[in-house]
């Protein structure tokens, strides 16, 4: 119980701090908006073959702007020198990891809700009927992304060329997740039978569980000096 309270304190601190400036949330939302617009020009939206691409566009928007949030998650703590204060608190590394991870997750979800509504308008797709399965896929995808991203954010925050390094670490590892997300979203948006997404769901769940477990086992090694 104490553990959950402490994790929640970290999440609360991140959210309260972000709500003061809204800097990160605004830039994440703006960025994903831009991605949607740019892709609209790159792939002529009038064409039928857009259907193939549209779920990809959505996830590119999610992941690229998610990456912005991730980079700042530990980056800000290190720049402002608060990381040591956090590390000195009586909480296990896993607790610090969970707190930061949930923070990133919540910011991403806010950005995703915004992006989805813009997406519905710009691409003329009614997502209301698919809200439930789509929500599940987005939940699993965002969780997986935050899971690996928080680990690599903690690593890259200490290195040179921080942002580039974060992308280089996150992208290759997230390949199976991205494939599963794009395919599952595609099936859902174009009215496929729900059974069709089961294999992808399995991959997503496996990905999330495996990497959460690995983060649990290894995060202590990342923050020690």
């Amino acid at each position, binding site marked *: 119980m104490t553990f959950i309270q402490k994790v929640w304190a970290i999440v609360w601190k991140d959210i309260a701090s972000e709500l003061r400036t809204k800097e990160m949330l605004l830039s994440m939302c703006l960025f994903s908006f831009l991605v949607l617009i740019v892709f609209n020009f790159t792939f002529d939206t009038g064409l039928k073959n857009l259907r193939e691409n549209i779920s990809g566009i959505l996830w590119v928007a999610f992941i690229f702007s998610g990456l912005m949030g991730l980079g700042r998650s530990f980056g800000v703590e290190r720049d402002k020198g608060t990381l040591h204060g956090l590390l000195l608190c009586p909480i296990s590394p896993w607790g610090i990891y969970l707190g930061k991870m949930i923070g990133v997750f919540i910011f991403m979800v806010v950005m995703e809700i915004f992006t989805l509504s813009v997406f519905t308008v710009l691409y003329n797709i009614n997502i209301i009927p698919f809200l439930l399965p789509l929500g599940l896929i987005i939940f699993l995808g965002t969780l997986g992304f935050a899971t*690996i991203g928080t680990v690599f954010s903690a690593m890259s925050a200490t290195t040179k060329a921080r942002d580039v390094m974060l992308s280089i*670490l996150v992208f290759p590892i997230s390949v*199976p997740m991205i*494939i599963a997300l794009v395919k599952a979203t595609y099936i859902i948006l174009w009215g496929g039978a729900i059974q069709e997404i089961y294999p992808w769901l399995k991959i997503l769940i496996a990905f999330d569980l*495996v990497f959460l477990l690995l983060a649990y086992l290894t995060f202590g090694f990342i923050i020690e000096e």
Partner: protein
Amino acid sequence: MTHNRAFLKVFQFVTFFMMLLALYAIFVYAPVEKSMGIIQKIFYLHVPSAFLAFFAFFITFIASILYLYKRDNRWDTIAFCSAEIGVIFCTIVLITGPIWAKPIWNVWWTWDPRLTTTLILWFIYVAYLMLRSVAGENRRSNFSAVFGIFGFVNVPITFLAIRLWRTIHPLVITGKGINISTPMIHTLIIAFVAFCLLFFWLLINRIGLEKMRLKVEEIRASIEDKIHLEHEKQGG
């Protein structure tokens, strides 16, 4: 030390001999495959390299776990050297793959699960090497060990995802089976052994080099330290 060196000399000779034998087997002993023609001989390079790349990354994975468990820098060195050689073999796979594919299927690249997984693998371990070069000295070993574990655990998930993705999409290329005859199997085994020897020979040398580099750095640091202390003593 001399014992070690003698062993290395013998090892080097055997490796060299096996490589020549493999070349002989590939070009003279093995028959030309019927449906693909002479180009099929790339197979003898491609397959052992792919296996060794995978094997090298497996060594990195195990050494990374052992490093975190035992906190012994030797494991870190082994993980790093193995990853570097793995990237070399992985590069060979990624170059010979398209060269093989082009004359047979008339495309350079196919998003075949194995080839695509190899490409992702290449990216992961190039990222591993980059992480090592940018991470601070007292964090490098821990970071790369964690990433080495993440990267390898990711491989089967990636393979499954890509396979699922390809089977749902219509395959542009349907793999033509190779009609394997006994001499071909012999040749493959010889090439396999030769490449394995080459791999271990490279690994031993690379680890030796890394250990030597660390030793020189240590000696240099301790000399600088001594000079610094002596200087201070004279100053005071």
